[in-house]
């Protein structure tokens, strides 16, 4: 896997640390964040190999230990640099790692830099009305038509689909084999003819995800990632990185979602009660333990790729996040019943040059909105049920469940 790619010039962790430190120093000296347009600053980071430090030199990386990304981000963001994950989460967290591992060299050149500089926002066309948890059961068809593929089908719950320029697409190329065997992976230019995006309103009132109709969409074969029929394997790179991106907590105490109730508690002495205090301290302990487990697992991996334990981290942080907002609502008491945000348009903050802060349209202050949004934590990126299956089967080695679709061609599996 790409995560442990080591550039021949840089061997040990310490050497890598020095390389990162030197590169970051140079970027900050030449492009001080306060005085540099965002896109230009991000371009400088990419060129210096600080975008994804474990990627090869020339591809946005330095070929060093992936564990050093935190170190790099600490220096850059500490000096006022933007957090690329908030600007282009799917590109930064999922598309980059998938493209660098599976795309042609030419496509890497075309895609990586603009996704990092946020010139191209990315989205993920995986889920379908008939295939969510059972992603490998998806029905969108891609049929080979010479140098191009022709795609027909419907995707759903596509975050950022309404603004994305590029998409990660998983489609079925062979319905007559077992479901995992018949998938192929593509990157799709969202401006291609036949791509139609319809926003979906969600329970917060906003439309952050969409349904996407694909009708006779042509995709050049050069935009295929991995072999025909190998799409599931490529998708695993994406999904692992998705869970790790969501599950990778910060190693700084109280910098995760627990900051929200701690701040509320400090601001509102009038609402404090002993019972609520006990609950808050119990949440603090859970949050801090989860933070320490993240730190420990990072050290134990020694920079190697994250395994299925990344799914456990996503499981823990998503359920903790919900408990945190449940607490916030209980803390607010009667005030919690008020909300005027359903019709508000949460315009993402524009950082200049069209670079927008897609992931934090509302501030920490908007507790009711975050509470409502938190119901998605345990659905998006794999539901908690699915993650517990993964922990049970892939981390602990328990036997799989009985399956009605085992060894059957996809076309013969019941759906609904």
């Amino acid at each position, binding site marked *: 896997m790409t995560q442990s790619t080591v550039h021949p010039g840089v061997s040990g962790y310490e050497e890598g640390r020095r390389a990162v430190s030197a590169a970051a120093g140079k970027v900050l000296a030449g492009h001080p964040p306060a005085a540099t347009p965002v896109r230009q600053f991000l371009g400088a980071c990419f060129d210096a190999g600080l975008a994804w430090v474990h990627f090869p030199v020339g591809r946005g990386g330095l070929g060093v230990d992936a564990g050093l990304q935190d170190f790099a981000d600490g220096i850059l963001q500490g000096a006022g640099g933007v957090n690329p994950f908030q600007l282009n989460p799917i590109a930064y967290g999922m598309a980059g790692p998938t493209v660098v591992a599976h795309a042609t060299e030419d496509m890497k050149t075309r895609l990586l830099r603009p996704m990092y500089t946020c010139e191209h926002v990315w989205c993920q066309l995986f889920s379908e009305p008939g295939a969510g948890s059972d992603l490998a059961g998806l029905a969108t068809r891609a049929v080979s038509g010479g140098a191009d593929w022709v795609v027909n089908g419907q995707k759903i719950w596509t975050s950022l689909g309404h603004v994305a320029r590029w998409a990660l697409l998983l489609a079925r190329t062979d319905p007559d084999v077992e479901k995992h065997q018949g998938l192929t992976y593509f990157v799709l230019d969202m401006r291609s003819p036949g791509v139609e995006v319809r926003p979906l309103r969600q329970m917060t009132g906003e439309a952050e995800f969409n349904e996407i109709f694909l009708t006779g969409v042509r995709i050049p074969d050069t935009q295929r990632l991995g072999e025909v029929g190998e799409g599931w394997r490529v998708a695993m790179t994406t999904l692992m990185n998705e869970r790790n991106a969501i599950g990778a907590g910060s190693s700084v105490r109280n910098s995760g979602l627990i900051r929200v109730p701690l701040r509320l508690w400090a601001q509102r002495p009038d609402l*404090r009660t002993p019972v609520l205090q006990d609950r808050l301290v119990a949440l603090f302990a859970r949050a*801090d333990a989860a933070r*320490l487990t993240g730190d420990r697992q990072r050290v*134990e991996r020694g920079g190697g790729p994250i395994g299925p334990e990344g799914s456990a981290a996503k499981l823990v942080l998503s359920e903790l996040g919900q408990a945190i907002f449940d607490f916030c609502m209980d803390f607010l008491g009667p005030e919690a019943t008020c909300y005027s945000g359903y019709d508000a348009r949460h315009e993402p903050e524009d950082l200049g040059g069209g670079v927008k802060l897609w992931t934090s349209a509302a501030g920490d202050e908007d507790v009711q909105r975050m509470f409502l949004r938190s119901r998605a934590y345990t659905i998006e990126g794999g539901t908690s049920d699915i993650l517990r*299956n993964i922990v049970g089967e892939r981390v602990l080695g328990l036997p799989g*469940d009985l399956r009605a679709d085992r060894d059957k061609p996809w076309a013969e599996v019941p759906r609904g």
Partner: protein
Amino acid sequence: MASIEFEWSDEQRALRELVAGFFTRSPGDGYDRPVWRRLGTDLSALGLATSEAFGGSGASAIELGIVAEEMGRALYSAPFLATAGLAMTTLGGCALDQLVKELLPQLVDGTLVATAALSDVAGHIDLTRPPLAARRNGDRWALDGSSSFVLDGGAADVVVCYASARDIPGIFVVRGDATGLARSEVPGLDPGRHQAHLTFHGAEATEVGSGGSARTAVEAGLNVASALLAAEQAGVAQAMLATTLDYAKTRMQFGRPIGSFQAVKHRLADMYVDVEDARSASYHALWAIAEGTDDPALAASLAYTVSAEAARRVTASAIQVHGGIGFTWEHPAHRYFKRAVSNGALLGGKAMHAQRLTAAALGEHALAGPA
């Protein structure tokens, strides 16, 4: 030499293997005096955090934590938390004293067993309020009062007492057989964990520390013991996760292993999450104490709290997943469960550690109230 948090050295790995082998193979337990001596001499497990000047190995609390974790895994019983955690740490903070210089080497080599009396008759620990009173008696001291729930208070040859002399906190050493000291063992929910009720009627004592530094030394002992207890809980939880996992893979019902049922699988996934957090929090406390990576009081109480919850849940789940056999006297699950539950009430109990955590987490915003 500073070490990176969570990164075990080769020596530490070797120590873990050595003590784990000993705990699983040795007959009897650490309450057998010859076995206790072997822990001190053959394994050098008691003086790991004690300076070489007193016969210790000059390593750190991290190494003591390895011993505690493996004790938990093997459900090994020994007066280890009391001796190496509470008493030796506290005495180590008074190491300029002549008596302490004599005692430490005998604690390191397992000649003596020791404990500390910090709790009041209800088992509460409040460092601002020593449970015992000290008064001058010629050139010696005499102690009065009671201290309950004293870990290994019955077996201890040496009791390190927290007492105040005219409102000044002090540390006093009382011999287990001193006149004026009455001890009665408290039968335990966990039969492998020994506690005693100690009554002092002018018990003969030697002062080894006084004032602010005495309180600091007592607090250090409490922090180390809490971190060791948390490591033990992590070991307890790991053992029951492993046992339950094996069972879930082999026990067949409805023609398939019970671990393939989601309800069972998900319970095991939650056990795994608990085990991981107990390990992280307890190791962090050990590193905070040994390497100063965090405030030791906060880290120790965090570890205590997290691992107490985790170990109780994991051991209770172990009984549940085993079904009827899990409820029998023969099956080890109940012994682990009892240790986890009992451990979660030692050293001041969950409420005291929650109080310390509250102070650390909320600072000036914490509600004022009884500690």
